[in-house]
């Protein structure tokens, strides 16, 4: 996304907007991840607290998803660049 066609005041406002959206996105990521790991891992209701097995599962779940998200982000950035170059 190229913002050089906007003037300085607009760019400042856009940057503030981007920051706001990034925070919103981060919170969404967090609640999404909690949901996902709970659905996939927390299946033993014979006890109130998280079992060791569940805890390991949750660690792996969170790690995996975050690494996955990171990798998708990297590929996404690469491919978006390519698309922009082709359009030019």
């Amino acid at each position, binding site marked *: 996304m190229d913002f050089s066609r906007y003037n300085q005041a607009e760019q400042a406002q856009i940057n503030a907007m981007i920051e706001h959206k990034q925070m919103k996105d981060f919170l969404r990521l967090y609640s999404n991840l909690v949901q996902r790991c709970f659905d996939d891992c927390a299946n033993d209701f014979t006890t109130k607290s998280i079992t060791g097995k569940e805890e390991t599962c949750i660690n792996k779940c969170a790690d995996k998803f975050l690494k*996955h998200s990171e990798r998708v*982000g990297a590929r996404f950035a690469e491919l978006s660049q390519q698309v922009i170059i082709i359009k030019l």
Partner: protein
Amino acid sequence: MSFFGGNAMQSQQAVNPQNIAMAEQELEMVTDLFNRIVDSCYTKCISKEYQQNDLTQGESVCIDRCVSKFFDVNTKVGEKMQQMGQQNMPK
């Protein structure tokens, strides 16, 4: 009245709300696209067994291909819709 010694083109510091709205829309689109790719490719590539903390080699390759395919599908569907739009025009 310009305090900025530099670029004359940018000395008008008026904010055009339409530009902001446009930028916001573009950002929304990109963010939405990204989130959908993350969700779809997670479902398609990563098993729920959670054997280990890291991505396996297979999963990594799958993710790369998944993102690439998603973009291709995105482009193709866009072209198709453009085609259909043009077909509906000469009436």
